């Protein structure tokens, strides 16, 4: 999904609804995350979300202007290997754990012509 930079003010506060997301928001996020929640789960999760995000709101109180984001702890960069083909695991081994497969391919429900 495309990041929206509109909230990146130096002392930006999370949007008000972020702290108590309604069930509809949880449903939308669940859809993005490909989770098919049951009705009572949506309500429980909305309640937990509110509680968790209330606790996390403290992040908004810090002045982070001019601070560079720390994407990770690794101090290694530009790691490359020789541009030579190397053997990979055989397809048979990779397919062995799939719930449905042919000798060469994973099998999934038909997608062409239906929903995307």
């Amino acid at each position, binding site marked *: 999904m*495309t990041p929206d930079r509109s*909230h990146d003010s130096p002392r930006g506060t999370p949007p008000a609804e*972020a702290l108590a997301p309604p069930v509809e928001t949880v449903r939308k996020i669940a859809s*993005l995350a490909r*989770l098919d929640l049951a009705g009572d789960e949506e309500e429980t*999760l909305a309640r937990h979300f509110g509680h*968790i995000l209330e606790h996390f709101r403290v992040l908004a109180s810090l002045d982070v202007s001019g601070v560079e984001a720390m994407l990770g702890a690794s101090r290694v960069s530009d790691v490359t290997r020789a541009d030579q083909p190397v053997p990979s695991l055989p397809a048979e081994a990779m397919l062995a754990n799939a719930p449905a497969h042919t000798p060469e391919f994973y099998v999934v429900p038909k997608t062409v012509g239906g929903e995307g």
Partner: protein
Amino acid sequence: MSAVHELDATGLRNSILKGERSVRDTIQETFARIDAIDPALHVFLNTLRKRAMARANELDQSLAQGERPGALFGVPVALKANMCLTGVETNCGSRILAGYRPPYTATFVQRLIDAGAIVVGMTNMDEFAMGSSSENSAFGPTRNPWDPARTPGGSSSGSAVAVAAGLVPIALGSDTGGSVRQPAALCGIFGFKPTYGRVSRYGLVAFGSSLDQVSPFARSVRDLELTLSVLSGADENDPTCFDEAPVAPESPADRASLSGLRIGVPKEYFPDVLSGGVRERCEAAIARLEELGAQIVPVSLPHTDYAIPTYYVVATAEASSNLARYDGVRYGPRADGDGTLQGMFAATREAGFGPEVKRRILLGTYVLSAGYYDAWYGRALKVRALLARDFEAAFEKVDVIVGPTSPTAAFKLGEKVDDPVAMYLCDILTTPVSLAGIPGVSVPVGFVEEGGRKLPVGLQIAGPFKADARVLRVARAHELATEWSKAAPPLGTIVPPRTSAGARAGKSEKPPPEGATRGGRE
């Protein structure tokens, strides 16, 4: 002659090389103890008896033929169930990976095997390493050997208890926000998270990729050093892994004295929520370090209070991405849903993931989604930088930093299960070290008494980036100066009287099928 469970890995290897016992005897005795204790504590999800015995015979033969023994020759080890070993079920404590048998072996597992270690089984864990108590395992909780009504901590719960209960001298866990240090503290053993990048993550099932680090448990610091020397080093399959010679154990002469060492004590690591007993034990340990010659220096890590929200935003964001791959196509059971592709994805994930994993996937999806990304995820990455700067500033004044590993001793199973924030706060003292990517070890420093039970307390020792050997040196000095790490949990009620290894092995209950999960008993 000492029993296998009374020896650390170094002592066990020496015993085998002296001819006091064969590798075969060692493994038989190990499984006899597993059979006796595991039903009460639920340490293993599967055990690898036949595979281990076959390997033991090979190693005995190699020794007889004069081959040079490896650094972990004949040592039984346990792996957390998120570590890949070809053909052995690696289910991450989750229904969604039930039956998954990886087609390859993790780099760090192969290094253990090449050094002569014998993998005896895969241990229980909070689902996908998300949890601090083992209660998020789809296969039921692991119990603390000091009090089976309490949690051993998590998420590397089974590996911690495997070592604490004397089932193996060394076990591997993974530490993302404290998942090795916290259970080590709650079980009274050593748990060491190396510098991020010290050990390859290839073959470790990903949770939070910028935080995950393979980390050993042991009952002695020399075993941690030995294990780290085997595990560490560059790997072409993990580009975050640095190309540096493995950490070599320091010479024994360096260990007894801490003269000249500056130890920082951050006031933020002794917050009001800290249990009184934990505070007292940690202060006593710091006083002991001072007696050993260290200079104690007050320091400040001013952004400590921001570590939990920062960690849970960053880790859940990474988890929501990493766990997108579990969709019923490539591994695990599939649920058909409404018969469409999207319906199959959603139904599989709904049926396969437990409540905490769903909560974290949703939280991670939320903080990454349009409209919220910069307010939450982008901001957390900047606060992460501030937390790392805190450490850099402190390490200009001191050589290591110490504080409690966990704000409390082991809590009762069920006590925090309905309150996610209370559970997240268990990680308040370990997540800053994880976010900064620096090394940290939890050291046993005594006990508190609760409900008539002795419960272990751990002290965390953290050092600058790549200062793994220094952190272990301080741990070793404390270990040599105290007896805390020698205490064993009161397993008398669940362990039968000691007899010869062969007799015990012969009397053991029928083992579960090789490599099959033993989950779902709770």
